[in-house]
């Protein structure tokens, strides 16, 4: 190892690559505030039944969850294209693709799981 590269990497010398990763007080508070709002609204929607339509409420609640996950990724996990030269973002994108295939595929394939089952018994009428 040449001497000049050694000088740049003395023990204890840190180029602080993770300075970005610590975030800032403002960033954390922004993320926290957004998370509180994005949590409170879906809970309120379900508990009050304000939309009056269960299917619509379900879709809206899922939408809020997706937005809140993105908020957490940006403000708490400090995800962006620059950290680790973009490798963490690439791994995340790959994982999201696999997760979507797993979830959508399972639900789609198993959608008719109960179609050929016997009719449901009403257990309350049994002795």
């Amino acid at each position, binding site marked *: *190892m*040449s001497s000049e*590269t*050694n000088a*740049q*990497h003395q023990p*204890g010398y*840190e180029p602080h*690559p*993770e*300075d970005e*990763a*610590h*975030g*800032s*007080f403002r960033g*954390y*508070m922004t*993320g*926290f505030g957004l*998370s*509180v709002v994005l*949590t409170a609204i*879906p*809970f309120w929607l*379900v*508990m009050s039944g304000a939309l009056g339509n*269960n299917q619509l*409420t*379900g879709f809206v*609640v*899922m939408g*809020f*969850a997706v937005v*809140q*996950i993105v908020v*957490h*990724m940006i403000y*708490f*996990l400090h995800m962006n294209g620059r950290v*680790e030269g973009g*490798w*963490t973002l690439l*791994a*995340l994108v*790959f*994982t999201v693709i*696999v*997760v979507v295939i*797993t*979830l959508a595929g*399972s*639900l789609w394939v*198993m959608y008719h*799981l*109960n179609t050929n089952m016997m009719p*449901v*018994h*009403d*257990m309350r009428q049994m002795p």
Partner: protein
Amino acid sequence: MASTMTVPQGGEAPVFYLKDEHPHPEGHSTPLGFWLYLMSDCLIFAILFAIYGVLGANYAAGPAPKDLFDLNLVAINTAMLLFSSITFGFAMLEMAKGKVAATQGWLAVTGLFGLAFLAIELYEFHHLISLGATPQRSAFLSSFFVLVGTHGLHVAFGLVWLTVLMVQVARHGLIAANRRRLLCLSMFWHFLDVIWIGVFTFVYLMGMLR
């Protein structure tokens, strides 16, 4: 290598390769490696969510989510985890400033919120089991207990890790190795909060709508 090379006739062409000599400081790749672990953990949860999505409506004439879940309790639990996330963020900010006492303080607060979350979850499980809604009751309850229980186990191990790191920081201070470990634990902790968003939405809120 602009200069021309003369290859002796019949001889093999010379092969050049660069020796990997640039320095790698210790632990420089740990955050990326830990992130890859978190992504594989994410796949475990994806499979558990898929199982719950497929089996979550099979009540076997047993209790349904509406009969069991208390959204007030879930809201309190969600708040506990969200508070612990923000306090861990404060601990990381103090760590960046090099303040040992403040870092330890925020870590302790994070641990208390995590403990509160676990206590409420265990109370809920105990309540369900006392009602006869055990994991053996129906496919819905089996998949529910596995999914929520796996998340709870992650939080429990996160608390053990947090305690160990607090001892480490108390003994050795905020050295580079401890900063790295705290960075990994903070990613783990925020990741668990992300998973919880999926749990309270998909299991509790959507369950109440069925």
